């Protein structure tokens, strides 16, 4: 008895320690956000030197706090209200851990943990930065930390205790008990919050009134890292929706998805415009503006989700107090940065001179299209709110609008992309670029014609998507080939940044093909099947072999055994389930998928029907995996670029020993 009491006391102490270090982190962030700023202004070295130390300490404090909360979830400490509401002793360990961020309070703690991680990384790897710039960057990062730590402590404290700890918890929402969801939020947050670095660099540059090639080179790795994580995070979320929601949709244009997509689009634009600043000292003011907007969209995303102001499938925190708090944060940071921008942007003079047909112009077009696309998503997302407040109209803006209003810009972007990426700096000859792309155009046209012939009578989307996708992929290949001077031997010696660009652009093409073919050629069958019955779907013989009850760790399931054969040969045996989680009293559908390079077979088991059969839904999803495969290749492209020599050198140049240290 004494031993369990002791164990209980230790657990209580760990939780209180987490609470304490969280408050301590706020105090440290306050120091980090103010003193180095003053120091940088006055030229006081010792005050500036506080910044890296504070950033490190702040990270350690938040890490301890996060570890304490994780400990409470892992050991099922139901004296914490949050653990009681979101966990259960019978829950598998993976979901006990991921349950830490499967709720509002914990996810905000993860948010500030990652914020502090980026701040810490800038302190640890930012040795090559000028002292003033580093102090200012870390100070701005500290101020963001102050805002969000205060938000957590005053409106969303994860360490609130229950006087009488219940015997067991209410369990995590079953839909969240999924490996995809365990990893999706951390990646997404790494991306979202990573953009805060671009923001901090932008604000620091505005305070200094100086943006040059070196600044662009320092800010780009952070943006690249954030973009890469955001790409992976969005892909994971989309993949999860595909297999979990039970009908194979992968993108719903839901406000919360849009909230992650807008920063992605702006970050993509920022990546490209920062190249122009780095190489040609032009587009400076615009790049700064993009950096502010990119993080602004991250904050707007946080606001949309946390306030529930725009009703969405996702928004679960219908808590006005939190919404107002985040709106205030948004107003202070984005408003403040834009005011500063208005005063200082004029100082940033462009230097580079270039012709109308040049790589610079192409990158400007890239930025126009991406910015407009992000703007369309933004307007569509907030329009229901605007219409209600300004015009007293209660209306919806859903997928059909976005598909119609957003897609044209992506088509235009894809058409121009390979041309732009082959243009040389300063002055290009359009005829020459187009001639070298002729094989890509020919291939794209041929494969589109083939697609058209195979899918006669199906939507035009298929051949158009294939044409664009092949054009992008072949264009990326020609880009690399040209860079290598048309010699195979030189391909391997190209800088990683070139390979990164090639993979990112080619990956986009793969995703285009996946989206187009899956949407246009999807085959669907809904029917009542008797046990033992075989039916035909899109050339496959589907047999409902059996249905039985199975018992999971914390759920009961009805599991079907479905055989799928083609030309008399079995190609897959699938076990879709319908689960009921008794603690949460909630059912879920677990689709079973046979993955393939050219098609996914996707089956879902439904309810028993009156005549003794079962509702069975069968889908054939052509090229589905190309969507996420392409996205992962894009992210890999980001990684390749990130490890390019010029960033390793930039990060390690001031060290005594020239070690190659990645800037991330």
């Amino acid at each position: 008895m004494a031993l369990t009491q002791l164990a209980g006391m230790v657990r209580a102490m760990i939780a209180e320690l987490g609470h304490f270090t969280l408050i301590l982190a706020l105090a440290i962030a306050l120091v980090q956000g103010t003193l180095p700023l003053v120091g940088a202004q006055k030229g006081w070295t010792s005050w500036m030197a506080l910044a890296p130390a504070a950033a490190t300490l702040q990270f350690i404090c938040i890490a301890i706090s996060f570890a304490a909360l994780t400990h409470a979830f892992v050991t099922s400490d139901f004296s914490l209200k949050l653990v009681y509401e979101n966990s259960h002793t019978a829950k598998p360990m993976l979901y006990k851990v991921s349950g830490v961020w499967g709720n509002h309070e914990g996810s905000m703690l993860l948010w500030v943990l990652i914020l502090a991680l980026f701040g810490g990384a800038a302190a640890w790897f930012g040795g090559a930065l000028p002292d003033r710039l580093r102090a200012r960057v870390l100070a701005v990062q500290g101020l963001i930390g102050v805002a969000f730590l205060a938000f957590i402590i005053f409106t969303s404290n994860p360490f609130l205790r229950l006087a009488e700890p219940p015997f067991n918890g209410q369990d995590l929402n079953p839909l969240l008990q999924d490996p995809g969801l365990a990893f999706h939020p951390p990646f997404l947050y790494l991306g979202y919050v990573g953009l805060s670095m671009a923001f901090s660099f932008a604000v620091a540059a505005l305070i200094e009134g100086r943006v040059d090639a070196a600044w662009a080179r320092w800010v780009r790795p952070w943006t690249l890292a954030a973009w890469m994580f955001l790409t992976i995070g969005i892909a994971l979320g989309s993949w999860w929706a595909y297999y979990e929601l039970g009908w194979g949709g992968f993108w719903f244009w839901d406000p919360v998805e849009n909230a992650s997509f807008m920063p992605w689009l702006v970050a993509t634009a920022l990546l490209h415009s920062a190249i122009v600043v780095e190489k040609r000292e032009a587009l400076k003011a615009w790049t700064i503006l993009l950096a502010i907007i990119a993080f602004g969209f991250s904050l707007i995303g946080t606001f949309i989700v946390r306030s529930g102001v725009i009703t969405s499938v996702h928004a679960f925190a219908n808590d006005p107090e939190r919404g107002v708090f985040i709106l205030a944060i948004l107003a202070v940071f984005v408003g403040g940065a834009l005011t500063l921008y208005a005063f200082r942007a004029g100082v940033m003079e462009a230097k580079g001179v270039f012709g109308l047909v040049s790589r610079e112009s192409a990158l400007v077009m890239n930025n126009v299209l991406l910015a407009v696309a992000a703007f369309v998503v933004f307007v569509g997302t907030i329009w229901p709110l605007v219409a209600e407040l300004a015009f007293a109209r209660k209306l919806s803006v859903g997928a059909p609008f976005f598909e119609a209003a957003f897609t044209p810009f992506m088509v235009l972007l894809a058409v121009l992309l390979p041309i732009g990426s082959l243009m040389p700096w300063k002055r290009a000859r359009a005829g020459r670029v187009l001639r070298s792309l002729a094989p890509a155009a020919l291939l794209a046209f041929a494969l589109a014609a083939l697609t058209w012939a195979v899918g006669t009578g199906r939507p035009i989307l298929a051949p158009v998507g294939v044409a664009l996708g092949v054009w992008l992929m072949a264009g990326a290949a020609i880009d690399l080939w040209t860079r290598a001077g048309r010699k195979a031997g030189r391909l391997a010696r190209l800088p990683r940044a070139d390979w990164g660009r090639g993979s990112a652009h080619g990956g986009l093409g793969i995703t285009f093909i996946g989206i187009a073919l899956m949407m246009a050629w999807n085959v669907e069958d809904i029917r009542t099947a008797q046990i033992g019955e075989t039916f035909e779907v899109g050339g496959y013989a589907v047999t409902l072999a059996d249905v039985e009850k199975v018992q999971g760790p914390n759920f009961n399931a009805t599991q079907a055994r479905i055989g799928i054969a083609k030309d008399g040969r079995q190609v897959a045996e699938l076990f879709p389930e319908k689960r009921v989680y008794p603690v949460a009293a909630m059912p879920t559908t677990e689709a079973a998928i046979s993955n393939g390079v050219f098609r996914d077979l996707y089956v879902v088991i439904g309810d028993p029907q009156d005549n003794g059969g079962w509702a069975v839904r069968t889908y054939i999803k052509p090229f589905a995996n190309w969507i996420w495969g392409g996205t992962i290749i894009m992210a890999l492209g980001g990684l390749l670029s990130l490890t390019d020599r010029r960033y390793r050198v930039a990060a390690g140049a001031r060290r005594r020993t020239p070690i190659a240290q990645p800037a991330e």
Partner: protein
Amino acid sequence: MARFLPALTLAAALLSALPAAAVQPDEVLADPALEARARSISAGLRCLVCRNENIDDSNADLARDLRLLVRERLVAGDSDTQVADYLVSRYGEYVLLNPTARGSNLLLWVAGPGALLIGLIGAGVYLRRRRSASEPAVAPLSDEEEKRLSEILNS
């Protein structure tokens, strides 16, 4: 913010109607052409009790009622627009996932093309200025910068 958030609200929708993944076998019309029309209309109609889900994907009871209603009207010989108009007259334009381009909504629809036009004009002005700008005199590197440069190049 995250794709994992649908859960709780989706849960509410699921609880109110025990699960029946979207379109049920007994709803499907015998005529495939009519059924295809029903599906494409359904994809553009909002499940009123859900959050941003169309009735074709939704599991809610109300979504099922609306799906059956759409099919009823189609079987009775309505055109696609007539079905949509009928639902709007009953539930208001909130039911349409694809907002009409009437009245203030025109702003929504011209936002994209308008922004593109402004962006292109802005880019055009900027590019013309860059083309005619004179290359600025390059200031020679200071001693410290020279040293730094050789450090970088030699590392």
